[in-house]
């Protein structure tokens, strides 16, 4: 029997829509879940996905992708790549798996919301495949690290992190809960797939795949490249939805969702990806600085994606352009200084050679962040380790849940952006974080940051031990310097030379 070509039947099959007779349209597609944009079913039938795939095609391609990634893993299982890897690279893997794997699983439910509740038939088809993608990503990124759990307890955080109150996980959950777990189907398509996946996961996965290959970790490189091929397909779910909204006079609503999601994604990447690229990755394996990567992937490409769509650049674009050269240095210094509260061992990345690279990529680094590191390095060289650890909490932002920070040293410029709402004083790390809160205060007002929880007596005893227990960090899991401070030897030697001279 002759089989029709896909394009001879695809549009007709996927647009064969129900016409509800026994229930109203609002009962079939409750506005809270389908999107309160006031657009009828007919408007959404114009949704035209750029990437068309049928279920049999999907199964065939995915099977091949899985076979590829799993066979590389099987072939390299005895290679001792993990055992021999630079400790900084192990930290990259630990941070990535913990922050990402279970989030992918959660994303399957966001995709499922689009699959069931979107009024656009094409979106329902795309997100059916997207939902299966996310289940696959969750499973792979739990299965791949599992072989290392017996060698290194921190690897257990690939599974464990998402259920804990570790501060970075509170930040990740706050963001993903906001953009994908508690939004209607159309908003998910804009905030998760268009804003987050088109803009940012590209960078995390392409950037890391390149770094992994450089570091000789071909299992990891293959895994995340395999995932990225799915992302680049289902990230296209949001674009056509934006088009429908703009064509129907809903640009303002669409723009606001983009602006909120892009900012949150940026803050999360400044703490997760920035330190990895500019500090953890061994100097000889760095291809580009984080800022250069951001400029290529976000500023150049995403800017074009926005304007091609008929949207404006977010109102805060100038603030964002300034931040991409600054914020992640503070996020690195902060996460490193509070290192017992991490489930990975951060690499300091501040040897004289690394500092020369930082100064070249970020002119003025030595006079700003370098000033703080100078004090830290002196303490390590002097063996004054007590002073290299914190004795209080950094104040965190009530929106992004990350430390409120700015430029230190000679360029000192650190600002709080406070707001009093219903008698409670909230603190924000930027004008944009505060703006997001102000768009829908009741959505966010009840959340307690890690500092709010501490002040409310929810963390007992009120010291580092109590905080680590609250965050679920057991002995053997708490973070410390990735290289056991071996990098400080060069500074010790320099000091000896100076003394001898």
């Amino acid at each position, binding site marked *: 029997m002759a089989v029709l070509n896909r394009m001879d039947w695809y549009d007709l099959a996927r647009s064969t829509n129900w016409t509800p007779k026994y229930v109203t349209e609002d009962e079939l597609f409750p506005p809270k879940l389908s999107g309160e944009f006031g657009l009828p079913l007919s408007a959404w039938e114009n949704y035209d996905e750029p990437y068309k795939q049928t279920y049999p095609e999907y199964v065939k391609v995915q099977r091949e992708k899985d076979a590829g990634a799993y066979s590389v893993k099987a072939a390299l299982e005895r290679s001792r790549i993990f055992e021999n890897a630079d400790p900084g690279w192990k930290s990259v893997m630990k941070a990535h798996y913990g922050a990402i794997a279970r989030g992918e699983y959660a994303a399957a439910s966001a995709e499922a919301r689009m699959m069931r509740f979107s009024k656009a038939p094409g979106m329902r088809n795309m997100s059916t495949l997207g939902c299966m993608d996310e289940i696959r990503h969750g499973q792979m990124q739990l299965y791949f690290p599992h072989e290392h759990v017996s060698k290194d307890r921190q690897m257990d955080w690939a599974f464990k992190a998402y259920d804990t109150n570790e501060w970075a996980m509170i930040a990740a959950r706050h963001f993903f809960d906001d953009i994908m777990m508690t939004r209607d189907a159309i908003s998910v398509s804009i905030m998760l797939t268009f804003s987050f996946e088109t803009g940012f996961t590209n960078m995390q996965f392409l950037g890391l795949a390149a770094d992994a290959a450089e570091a000789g970790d071909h299992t990891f490189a293959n895994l995340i490249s395999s995932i990225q091929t799915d992302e680049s397909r289902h990230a296209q779910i949001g674009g056509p939805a934006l088009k429908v909204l703009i064509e129907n006079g809903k640009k303002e609503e669409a723009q606001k969702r983009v602006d909120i999601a892009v900012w949150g994604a940026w803050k999360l990447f400044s703490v997760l990806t920035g330190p990895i690229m500019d500090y953890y990755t061994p100097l000889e394996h760095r291809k580009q600085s984080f800022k250069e990567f951001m400029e290529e992937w976000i500023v150049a490409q995403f800017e074009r994606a926005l304007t091609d769509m008929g949207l404006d650049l977010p109102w805060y674009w100038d603030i964002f352009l300034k931040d991409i050269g600054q914020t992640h240095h503070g996020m690195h210094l902060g996460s490193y200084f509070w290192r017992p509260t991490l489930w990975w061992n951060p690499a300091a990345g501040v040897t004289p050679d690394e500092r020369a690279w930082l100064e070249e990529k970020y002119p003025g680094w030595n006079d700003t962040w370098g000033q703080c590191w100078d004090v830290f390095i002196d303490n390590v060289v002097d063996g004054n380790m007590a002073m290299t650890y*914190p004795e209080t909490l950094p104040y965190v932002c009530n929106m992004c849940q990350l430390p409120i920070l700015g430029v230190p040293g000679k360029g000192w410029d650190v600002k709080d952006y406070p707001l009093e709402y219903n008698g409670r004083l909230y603190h924000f790390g930027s004008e944009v974080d505060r703006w997001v809160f102000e768009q829908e205060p009741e959505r966010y007002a009840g959340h307690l940051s890690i500092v709010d929880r501490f002040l409310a007596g929810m963390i007992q005893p009120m010291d580092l031990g109590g905080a680590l227990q609250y965050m679920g960090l057991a002995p053997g899991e708490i973070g410390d310097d990735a290289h056991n401070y071996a990098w400080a030897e060069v500074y010790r030697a320099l000091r000896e030379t100076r003394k001898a001279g």
Partner: protein
Amino acid sequence: MALFPLTSNFEGDFVLQLVPVDTEHTMDEVAAAAAVHSVGRRVRDRPGHILRVRRHGSTELLPRNLKVAEAGFKPTETVDIVWQAA
């Protein structure tokens, strides 16, 4: 006498930090409590300087012997801790 949380924005440091003080503390004592978490950890000491407190973003220094209870701070309000030549 009551514990009172303030947020320290310490000159030369990179991050805001939670600093518990007492309502009976003077501004000099607030500055000293904030310094514990910055000076010698990420900010070098400045001999010949003292530390002063001001409301966040203000240029006006608060009197050195002003008490926390008298300053009218809100709990967790951010204060700038800045160096002043002695």
